[in-house]
């Protein structure tokens, strides 16, 4: 038996039977489409959450990073002594070290005076700690007293900062301390902070008088060109106190993502939503296939009497499942792209439709339909020609 006959004929019969009853086909397609969109949205939000969690560290300009062992994530870090970072300079591979100070603080909306919490980053303006041009270009201004830069990608609740700056209204308060916004940059928000502000380390201490320069949140280490980050990491872990974690750039990103994936229940919530979407889709597709077999029982029995083997009907059922997966996935994908754009414009979270996500969701939907087909084929036994005639 050649492969065309083996798959093409049952697939063609499945297709002809599917398109014969348009109403039912539309209902079935909607079921798959629904499941498809649910999974796309859940995965989209989850990935967006992980991506935004790493939005700040991904722009950090360093080879190794020191954080306190007790820090769950950067946004709720435990400060440690700057002297620990300085000790890293003892390693010959280390070229320079810089301190990064972090704190959440209320920011007063210039227009409405309403206060909302954002993230404040403090560092030596000459350190080029952030790989963002707008910040590096403003390093002279940042050295002045009480100056800050504001993240344009912050939520709109902080006020229309760009037009306000253009109109010359640049004064506001952070942590009840008067500051002047001297410029804008673009970083992006996360689940932890609705907005970002960067300032110099000295200004940071003015805004947060209870903090001191000798207690830092993240230590940024740059190595001499040609040095191995992995090897230096291993050497430093023997030289530094054990209360600091030494992370490579990739490990830092993973550390931030892992917080949301594992420590916070949010990763679980989205995973659960994905599974629920697939279960609902599974039940719908199973119902459709099951009633389809019941309705075609007589026809299948006829074909069996003509000499068609049992395997042929199994292929018909799986082909139907495959077509439903495909028919539901395509509009589901198109609508999800639309919803991703909507989400990006409404909640200012990055929601990229990546190729790997498309493949992942399609695999999920295909497995869901295959599973439904697998559950439905036992009904084929009812198509026994001897009982029919």
């Amino acid at each position, binding site marked *: *038996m*050649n492969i065309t*006959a083996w798959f093409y*004929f049952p697939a063609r*019969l499945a297709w*002809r*039977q599917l*398109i*014969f*009853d348009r109403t039912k086909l539309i209902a079935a397609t909607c079921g798959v489409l629904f499941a498809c969109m649910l999974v796309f949205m859940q995965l989209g939000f989850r990935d967006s959450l992980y991506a935004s969690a790493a939005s700040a560290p991904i722009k950090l300009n360093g080879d190794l990073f020191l954080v306190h062992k007790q820090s769950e994530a950067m946004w709720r870090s435990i400060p440690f002594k700057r002297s620990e970072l300085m000790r890293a300079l003892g390693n010959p591979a280390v070229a320079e070290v810089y301190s990064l100070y972090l704190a959440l603080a209320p920011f007063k909306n210039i227009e409405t005076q309403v206060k909302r919490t954002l993230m404040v980053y403090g560092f030596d303006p000459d350190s080029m700690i952030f790989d963002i041009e707008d910040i590096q270009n403003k390093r002279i201004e940042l050295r002045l007293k009480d100056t800050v830069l504001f993240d344009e990608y912050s939520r709109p609740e902080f006020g229309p900062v760009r037009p306000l700056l253009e109109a010359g209204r640049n004064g506001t308060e952070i942590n009840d301390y008067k500051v002047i916004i001297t410029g804008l940059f673009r970083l992006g928000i996360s689940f932890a902070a609705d907005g970002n502000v960067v300032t110099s380390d000295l200004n940071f201490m003015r805004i947060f008088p209870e903090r001191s320069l000798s207690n830092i949140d993240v230590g940024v280490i740059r190595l001499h060109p040609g040095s191995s980050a992995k090897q230096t990491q291993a050497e430093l872990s023997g030289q530094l106190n054990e209360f600091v974690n030494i992370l490579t750039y990739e490990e830092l990103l993973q550390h931030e993502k892992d917080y949301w994936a594992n420590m916070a229940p949010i990763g679980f919530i989205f995973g659960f939503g994905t599974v629920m979407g697939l279960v609902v889709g599974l039940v719908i597709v199973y119902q459709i296939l099951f009633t389809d077999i019941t309705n075609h029982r*007589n*026809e299948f029995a*006829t*074909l*069996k*009497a*003509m*000499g*068609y*083997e*049992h395997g042929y009907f199994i292929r018909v059922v799986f082909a139907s499942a495959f077509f439903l997966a495909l028919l539901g996935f395509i509009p589901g994908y198109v609508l999800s792209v639309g919803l991703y754009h909507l989400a990006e414009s409404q909640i200012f979270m990055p929601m990229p439709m990546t190729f790997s996500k498309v493949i992942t969701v399609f695999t999920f939907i295909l497995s869901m339909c295959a599973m439904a087909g697998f559950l439905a084929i036992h009904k084929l036994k009812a198509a026994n*020609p*001897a009982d029919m*005639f």
Partner: protein
Amino acid sequence: MSAVINVHDLNFSFGSGALTQPVLKNVTISIYKGEIVLMTGPSGSGKTTFLTIIGGLRQAYHGSVVVLDQQLINSNEQVKVKVRQQIGYIFQQHNLLKSLTALQNVCMTLEMQNSMTEQQRLDRAAEMLRAVGLGDRLNYKPDQLSAGQRQRVSIARALVGRPQIVLADEPTASLDKQSGHEAVAILKRLAKESQTTILLVTHDYRILDIADRVVELEDGVIKNA
């Protein structure tokens, strides 16, 4: 003449134990190549059961049933599938696939034959439909056809694979006198052209005239073999 169907001492019953209900008792009959045999008898006499055993649709355990040189008693699924593929079946209801056109329905018989191209299948099916007088209805779906036309499509479907045997189970039951007679007349003409053996179960006495031989089954016993 060689017998294409050779049944000897076939016994068959439904149920088991105290509830055993014998349906066929010591049935012995031989049907030869090219013969048209009508089997009549009151309902419940076991006609359809007999037909489903011959057609490899129902498993029998006692006696001997040799169809096209294959023993069907205690046979496995492969043997039965092989026999089914060489038999054309015409059912009481037309049993056409309602989502397929007349042409596609007839092609279903040929799709089991890998040696043909798709075009050959379509040509042969169309030719067969023209032979049953439906050349202008090739692309009609079953619910766009009359009862008589549907039964003619199912005759075309049964014959298009050039089977050695055609089994027909009350093919005129759902038809009026004229279309019923037309249908069996077409069946007879095409069968005679290709030397096909026909075993037709019916209690429609209006069509007895097409038979070479009439056998009567009553309470599972053949009265005049």
